[in-house]
């Protein structure tokens, strides 16, 4: 799905009644099937940007252009599952997917043994997997992920990242993934948008040309340096 984002300004009202700018002049478009990481320090407005794209937050100056018919699959930072419904029911509730399709998603995320469990019985890692499965169950044109690997241990995060990437590539959803981890962004995305510290401005837009998996260690290190210097330049 194609997506056009043009945010002139997004402000939040603080408790003391003042307004504080958190996004400033953020313009970008995504091509169909693009996997784009949104990288930036904590509190720079990444989550806010994701909420604007999802349609949850319409209170901003600017415009958002989406195709008339589109399905959004979203993974929030917290799993946000229905605790009173089993894993299978949580997936079926939002899903327009056929049983076969759902079974494939469930298998890809290794959830088959947990379908009858309630969310309260799952670890955070498993609950995340269910949330990711749910996002795919709607057959999304646009997939929005907010720090899907945060507070998982490194091995678990790496494994989940690979499973997620495999699903994204197979289902060709246009993907916007929020992260504060440079290496994670390089591992998963074919384009990286870098936001400055608050108020978030777009300070770099880097496309990773090499096909996934073909990146050498040296190339990854170079990319990482380049992005880190983007951030350093912006803040000086």
């Amino acid at each position: 799905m194609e997506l056009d984002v043009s945010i002139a300004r997004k402000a939040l009202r603080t408790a003391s009644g003042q307004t504080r700018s958190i996004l400033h002049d953020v313009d970008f478009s995504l091509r169909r099937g693009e996997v784009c990481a949104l990288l930036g320090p904590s509190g720079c407005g990444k989550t806010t940007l994701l909420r604007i794209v999802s349609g949850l937050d319409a209170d901003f100056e600017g415009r958002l252009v989406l195709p008339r018919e589109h399905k959004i699959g979203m993974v929030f930072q917290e799993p946000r599952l229905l605790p009173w419904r089993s894993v299978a029911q949580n997936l079926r509730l939002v899903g327009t997917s056929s049983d076969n399709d759902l079974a494939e998603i469930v298998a890809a995320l290794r959830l088959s043994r947990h379908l009858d469990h309630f969310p309260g019985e799952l670890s955070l890692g498993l609950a995340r997997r269910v949330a990711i499965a749910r996002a795919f169950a709607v057959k999304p044109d646009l997939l929005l992920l907010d720090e899907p690997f945060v507070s998982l241990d490194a091995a678990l995060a790496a494994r989940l990242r690979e499973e997620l990437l495999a699903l994204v590539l197979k289902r060709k959803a246009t993907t916007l993934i929020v992260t504060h981890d440079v290496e994670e962004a390089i591992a998963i995305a074919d384009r990286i948008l870098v936001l400055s510290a608050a108020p978030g401005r777009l300070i770099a837009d880097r496309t990773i040309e090499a096909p996934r998996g073909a990146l050498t260690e040296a190339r990854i290190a170079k990319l990482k340096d380049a992005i880190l210097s983007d951030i350093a330049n912006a803040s000086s």
Partner: protein
Amino acid sequence: MSKLTIKAVSVWRPGKTKAFLLRLLPLILLLLVWQVGSRVSSTGTLPSPLAVLSVITTEAWSGALFLNLAVTLARVAVAFALAMALGTVLGVAMGRNKTIDRLCDPLLIVLLNLPALVVIVLAYIWVGLNEAAAIGAVVLNKLPNTAVTLREGTRALDKNLDEMARVFDLTFGKKLRHVVLPQLVPYLAAAMRSGLSLVWKIVLIVELLGRSNGVGFEIGIAFQLFDVTRLLAYALPFVGLMLAIETFILQPFERHISRWRPPHGA
């Protein structure tokens, strides 16, 4: 031999039996005190348990007891259902919408503080001595309580889940059934539990004041005749019936709808 004993004990579940006997104990004591009291008291003011039982049997035999119980139960059921339904709709609307809340809140406070008796008498005077006035008066007494409870529940709805439902574009029906209602269940259960006991107590007063049948009416007759035996013969089976509904219908229903919660301390 010893094996057999262990088996017998494990089937018998001594813990549960003990708990049951402990709950029964105060009731048995009460019966004893009643029996002793009936011996000591002057004739008529406190009949013995057996005398009451004999009147219950006579009334049951003639069918009058069941007829009156059924009539009262029907009034309780209709008033309870109406008060729950209207109170839920009002409470949810007030929890969701500030304007509705501001408009209705003063009325709720007035209703909450208006004595049941005033509502009942006014309903009979304004609407007439009929069934609609009787049921309406009971509903008006219970409705504010339900509305206030459900307003709390609606205010406590999880915003995160609401957003999830919006992003995933759930239909209104799906959202209501899977996202909203399960969160309101504890509040509905609380309103139902306090509701049933409140409603049946008020139904008796309504019957006493302006109906010509039902348990409340019979108690009114017994009062005019100073017939304590008859009074107890109607009151006790009705209290028993309400306790049975609470224990065998409401409580299992509540357990059924909250079965997803992991048991505490498990």
